[in-house]
């Protein structure tokens, strides 16, 4: 009974663990394609199985044999499979002297009662060792004598080239690319999306309500890098590294940056508490009919297609 309990407690623990593992995996992470995924899982499986088997083996290995011995007074005969294995083992696998004939290979060494057998090197071990040496020699020849294998730099250049081709192919599929020139204000849903991004990423520098902090106040009419949707889109995308504004173009998609820019513009005139003093120039949107020479929207707008 105790044995049973011990065994089951392990099984239960493992089951709980595996389930909790799948609970972690809600985030959609797709593993890199190719064999690595399977390699990883097989290593993991190998580890778990090896530990369980060792534990199980230790507990159960001799139980049946001993019971059989008690019952019949004779050692239990080997099953067909065991016989096969034992033969294979003797001839090819370890080539070890059987336990009954151990005295034939017992050396006269005695160290504090520890004796040594003169078993031969297990052939699988010996040949495995030779094989790794051959592989090592081939590896060195390939990469450093014949130089048919790529250097890390070559690998990198290949990787970048493949990526560039892929991106290009993807670009030609999506005809219209949103950029600072053709961006327009997002609708209410877009602004709501922008707000989410803002409160996850921008607030540490610009304040929870856009009041400013490390970065400038976003709610007033003064702008360091222009206050149109085009300007803001560009500032967010490329950043202003010298002043500490990071470039977010690699982080967010153009659509997300449009939403974010629109949200930022929606903060205009909200007058939050603790607002930072204005920085930059007063920005007045350039209207077609208007020629006021305050800082203008500096980006040329392409005519709508």
């Amino acid at each position, binding site marked *: 009974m105790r044995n049973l309990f*011990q065994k089951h407690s*392990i099984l239960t*623990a493992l089951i709980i*663990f595996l389930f909790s*593992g799948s*609970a*972690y995996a809600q985030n959609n*992470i*797709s*593993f*890199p394609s190719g064999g*690595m995924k399977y*390699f990883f899982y097989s*290593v993991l499986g190998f*580890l*778990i199985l*090896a*530990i369980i088997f*060792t534990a199980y083996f*230790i507990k159960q*290995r*001799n*139980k049946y044999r001993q019971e059989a011995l008690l019952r019949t007074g004779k050692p239990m005969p080997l099953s067909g499979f065991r016989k096969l294995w034992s033969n294979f083992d003797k001839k090819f696998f370890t080539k*070890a002297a059987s336990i009954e004939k*151990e005295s034939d290979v017992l*050396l006269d*060494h005695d*160290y*504090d009662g520890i*004796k*040594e057998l003169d*078993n*031969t*090197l*297990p052939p699988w*071990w010996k040949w*495995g*060792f030779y094989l*790794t*040496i051959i*592989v090592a020699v081939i590896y*060195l020849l390939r990469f450093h004598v014949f130089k048919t294998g790529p*250097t*890390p730099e070559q*690998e*990198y250049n290949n990787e*970048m080239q493949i*990526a560039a081709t892929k*991106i290009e192919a993807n*670009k030609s599929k999506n005809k219209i690319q949103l950029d600072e020139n053709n961006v327009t204000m997002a609708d209410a849903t877009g602004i709501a999306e922008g707000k989410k991004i803002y409160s*996850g990423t921008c607030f*540490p*520098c610009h304040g929870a309500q856009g009041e400013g902090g490390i970065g400038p106040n976003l709610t007033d009419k003064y702008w360091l890098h222009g206050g149109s949707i085009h300007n803001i889109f560009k500032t967010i995308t490329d950043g202003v*590294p010298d002043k*500490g*504004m*990071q470039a977010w173009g*690699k*982080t967010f*998609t153009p659509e997300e940056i449009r939403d974010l820019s629109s949200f930022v513009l929606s903060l205009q005139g909200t007058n939050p508490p603790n607002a930072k003093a204005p920085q930059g120039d007063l920005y007045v949107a350039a209207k077609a009919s208007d020629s006021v020479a305050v800082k203008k929207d500096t980006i040329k707008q392409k005519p709508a297609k």
Partner: protein
Amino acid sequence: MQALEKFQYDNKIARNFAYATIIWGIVGMLVGLWVALELVFPKTLNVQPFFSFGRLRPLHTNAIIFAFVGNGIFTGYYYSIQRLLKARMASDLLSRIHFWGWQFIILAAALTLPMGMTSGKEYAELEWPIDIAITIIWVVFGWNMFATILKRRVRHLYVAIWFYIATFITVAVLHIVNSLELPVSWFRSYSWYAGVQDALVQWWYGHNAVAFFLTTPYLGLMYYFLPKAANRPVYSYKLSIIHFWSLIFLYIWAGPHHLLYSALPNWAQSLGIVFSFMLLFPSWGGMINGLLTLRGAWDKVREDVVLKFMVVAVTAYGMATFEGPMLSLKTVNAISHFTDWTIAHVHVGGLGWNGMLTFGMLYWLIPRLFKTPLYSKKLANAHFWVATLGIIFYAVPLYIAGFTQAAMWNQFTPDGRLAYPQFVETVTYLKPFYATRAFGGSLFLFGALMMMYNLFMTVRKGKLVANEDAEAPALEKIYTGHTGEHWHRRIERKPIPLLMLSLIVILIGGIIEIVPTFLIKSNVPTIASVKPYTPLELQGRDIYRREGCYTCHSQMIRPFRSETERYGEYSKAGEFVYDHPFQWGSKRTGPDLAREGSLKIKKSDTWQFNHLDDPQAVTPGSLMPSYSFLLDAELDTASTVAKIRAMRKLGVPYAKGYENTANKDLTAQADLIRANLLKDSVRVKPNVEVLALIAYLQRLGTDIEKK
């Protein structure tokens, strides 16, 4: 046959080391559990400055390697070598000096590491006075060993002793070469080597700390305690010979596999790969010689808790040494490196191989030292299961965490941007795994406490046999070998040639890898725009090192698209020529910082300031400890002169006499940063440490952008 001589074994020294093993083991595991929990509760547990992750993690690794396993080695070593040589230790005084010296070193480590006194090189963090103490105590240990070997009553040295000898000589070489450093004050020094060369020496050392501190001495212990506990002959003498020599020869080459895809010359990386690959079978030689020794004794394994521990230990050894060569393959390493996969791997070795073998050995040894049966077999059995479960709950979540994080780092969207561009996303995702790992660790620690109680009760029941009587005939004066004896027998009866041969065998790999990297210029191509650090940056770098930032942040961008997209241009060997010591790191719990100051990812001084003050406020979900104490800590500008001088001595081209005006430059640069901060209404005192750290971070990776 000569007359029997009577003598006594010194059991007291084995007992003392056994006690130290248990106590330091529990301390080391406790610190480990603490740092594991810091990743789950970063805000509460990172009590700054002494208990923040960067300072405690080195304490954990050093305590486990040198205190727990170190004392474990000496416990088994002192017990077994006297019996294998049929002789008492040559000098009880030297044994005692060894014991107390080693404990003093550990105590010094436990005090200095939380204080931030660190050389900044992994597993070799202890500063120069302690390094010297280690060297002295190590010589005491070796001296006593050889003096005992020379007065032995057994002609041939058993395989366990070959491993002890190889351990002694190799650790001595590794420790001395890697610890060469130039002191600037009592507890501060700069590594003699810089950049790529420092990295190569460090990982030649680091990997062989695994090989010759965690592996070879424990194989020696296995070869004594396993056949003893099982009462079976060792499976194959031939295998012992072949795997011993091949193991020590091959192991020493393997270090560069910690630096794959780094700025290390490619040929050195390839040597690391192929030699790690060839290590598989020599390592497994130890495993199969252990497991096959149990042939015909498996029924005992069911009954005997000591053997159970040993079987799991040897199996874990087999698994870790299979995984090691696999992790050394470039394709696998590209995924595993810098992730928790590595942490899982070392803990299969640490908890499984070292931990379980130590436990098994102690359960066997303590009852024999105290001439009484173990207090509770049931409790020991429970310990076995708790510890085994602990290993599973520790390792499996970290395997998943490591692989998942690598997958997240490497994933791109179809339009060519990183799928997880914010590093912190990949970290917050791992929190449940870190929690499960901490649970596994606490199980393992709980098991160790059960053992402590069990052994304590055993000791109380028994009485120490401090001097155990023994007898053996003295060696004959003249000895001629048997005809037809194995050729290796001749080496086994000549300890000094055995020592010299081991030394030669282990020197080959180290010399072939290290010497060309130092002497051939093309291995580290220089870059003209790379200039020495300014005095403020130099001070900042020392703070970076003191706080152990390298335990979570790498400074090595590998030539992968996923890394150059995230961090910028991949790292070049020439960028590190003034880095004494190198700070490439080996794990990314936080993002790489090699180009923290470069245009692609540069942040403002105020951002860095606020982030160091309260990381979670700037990056929600971050696991980084707060370094708010740097905001008030005054910078030790008095040390600038000595530091510049030391750097010049190491070859950094500061102009002669620059040390005298350096502090003027330092203040000017600090004031510039203060002015930047003031623009964002952040006021700081002049010359506080945070300014130096910001200066250093903003400098990182910018040199190659300058024309």
